[in-house]
């Protein structure tokens, strides 16, 4: 026969627990603890070792490393008070893809993270290509990986000949979309052309991956902004400041050359250099880093 517990004891337990929480809240307010940045640590860097340790739970472990890679990338991008450090990004992506060799998004998204110029990313197109090559070992007919290597070659390394070759290999794979073949021709004839870039990003805008569509939208906005800057620089050349004066939006507006301060697609004002009249995207704009203005990580 089961015994009925004393309800007073249960109520007392709840009350004491509530009191403990109240003391905790009081202590945290009165004596706030300093959060020290202990640095990120990756205890096991070998994918093969981790694969053995987790036995049949390799897919779940790869998810954990994927989430960590996202946190490292996102966390470093938010840092403002110290230099950004993306050194763990590649080992994390390497672990995630060793544990789950079919983890498509980790290869593709990872390649984009890795190739993004500093400070938006580590600026390591070589590592991006390495992770995609690893994906090709697992799935040699996956046209997306060939396409992404082509893209790294094209966008970050400006190696149009190699990019054309990789696009061709992507187009040769089973199930590859039709639009890859014309891209090969464009790449061979006018790889550095802005319109070629626009054509490519417009194709990517139709991707089934939401993150890729968002990236394409941003890249197209950057290309549109570069077009706008070209037009504005023509306006600046046609309306030079008076002798001894400086280039400024105010001057151009007073000359009725412009209706107002020009904005980029993120509604951030463009910047005009007072001495040279050169126009650029503001450093505070979300469009930074712009493709024609890559910054290198500090050596």
């Amino acid at each position, binding site marked *: 026969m089961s015994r009925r517990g004393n309800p007073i004891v249960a109520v007392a337990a709840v009350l004491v627990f509530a009191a403990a929480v109240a003391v905790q809240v009081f202590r945290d307010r009165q004596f706030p603890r300093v959060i020290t940045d202990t640095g990120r640590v990756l205890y096991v860097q070998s994918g093969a070792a981790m694969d053995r340790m987790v*036995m*049949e*739970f390799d897919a779940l472990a790869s*998810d954990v490393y994927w989430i960590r890679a*996202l946190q490292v990338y996102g966390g470093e991008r938010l840092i403002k008070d110290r230099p950004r450090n993306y050194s763990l990004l590649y080992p994390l992506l390497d672990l995630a893809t060793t544990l789950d060799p079919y*983890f*498509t998004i980790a290869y593709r998204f990872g390649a984009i993270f890795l190739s993004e110029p500093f400070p938006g990313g580590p600026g390591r197109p070589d590592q991006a290509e390495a992770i995609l090559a690893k994906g090709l070992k697992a799935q040699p007919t996956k046209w997306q990986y060939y396409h992404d290597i082509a893209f790294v070659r094209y966008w970050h390394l400006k190696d149009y000949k190699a990019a054309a070759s990789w696009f061709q290999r992507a187009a040769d794979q089973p199930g590859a979309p039709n639009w890859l073949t014309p891209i090969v021709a464009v790449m061979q004839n006018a790889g550095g052309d802005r319109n070629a870039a626009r054509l490519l990003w417009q194709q990517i805008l139709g991707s089934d991956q939401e993150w890729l569509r968002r990236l394409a939208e941003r890249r197209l906005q950057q290309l549109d902004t570069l077009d706008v800057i070209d037009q504005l620089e023509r306006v600046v050349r046609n309306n030079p400041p008076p002798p001894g004066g400086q280039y400024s939006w105010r001057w151009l507006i007073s000359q009725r050359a412009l209706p107002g301060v020009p904005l980029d697609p993120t509604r951030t004002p463009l910047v005009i250099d007072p001495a040279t009249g050169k126009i650029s995207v503001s450093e505070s704009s979300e469009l930074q880093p712009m493709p024609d203005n890559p910054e290198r990580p500090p050596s």
Partner: protein
Amino acid sequence: MQGRAPPKPERSSVRTVSRIAVNVFRESVRDRVLYNLVLFAVLLISSSYLLGQLTAGQDVKIIKDLGLAATSVFGLFIAIFIGIGLVSKEVERRSIYALLAKPISRTQFVIGKYCGLVLTLAVNVAVMTAALYLVLTYMTVTESAEFKAGWDAPGIDPALLKAIFLIFLQLAIVTAIAVFFSTFSTPILSAALTFGIYIAGHFNTDLKNFDRIVESKPAIWLARGIYYLLPDLSAFDVKTEVVHGLPVAAGYLLSTAAYGVLYVTAVLLLAMFIFSRRDFK
């Protein structure tokens, strides 16, 4: 008045085994073993929300990974921690004397105990599968078609059942091993040995490929022998393939299932042999 004809020995034997099995199942329900299902449901539902915030569109993949891994882990704990006590507890409590005094053979006793735990595991796995599909259905219904186009495999994918089927068979093997050790060893030692064999079973293919790292023929034969002796548990892991929508051949499923059934039979026969020779004094 004519009396009832005595039941045929085979029918009576099946009835005895099923009674023991049902009792094991009832006992595990009484021991609140099925409470782990609540934990599983809470884990899946809470993670389905949290992962959406963390995983850059990979929440369905991760829910599938998590659901399959949790099914395997929870089942493994049940198989080991209940399996090791199935026979040895009866011996320790001395209830074995009363049981064996009844018209129950030692073979029926071992098979009944094993079937009871496999029944408990089957119920567990079935409920966990239903919960996993429920969460996946919710995610499939609530996500936009554009978002779903980026998934490797459909949210509600019947192929997941292939992985679940093999997980269940793997658990059946682990249960047989736990029952085997339970027939002659203490619960703590049985747990350690069963867990050890589970781990070794996942590294089994290394033994098969031993000839790649050593030249000694006897060492290669010994390694090959251990490879065939230990359960080849890594063969039962097709979770990654099904989650990514990659094909798993029907022939592979059938041959792995056949291997599982034969291995379980062999281990249980050995357990019966050892148990039949035990002297309870």
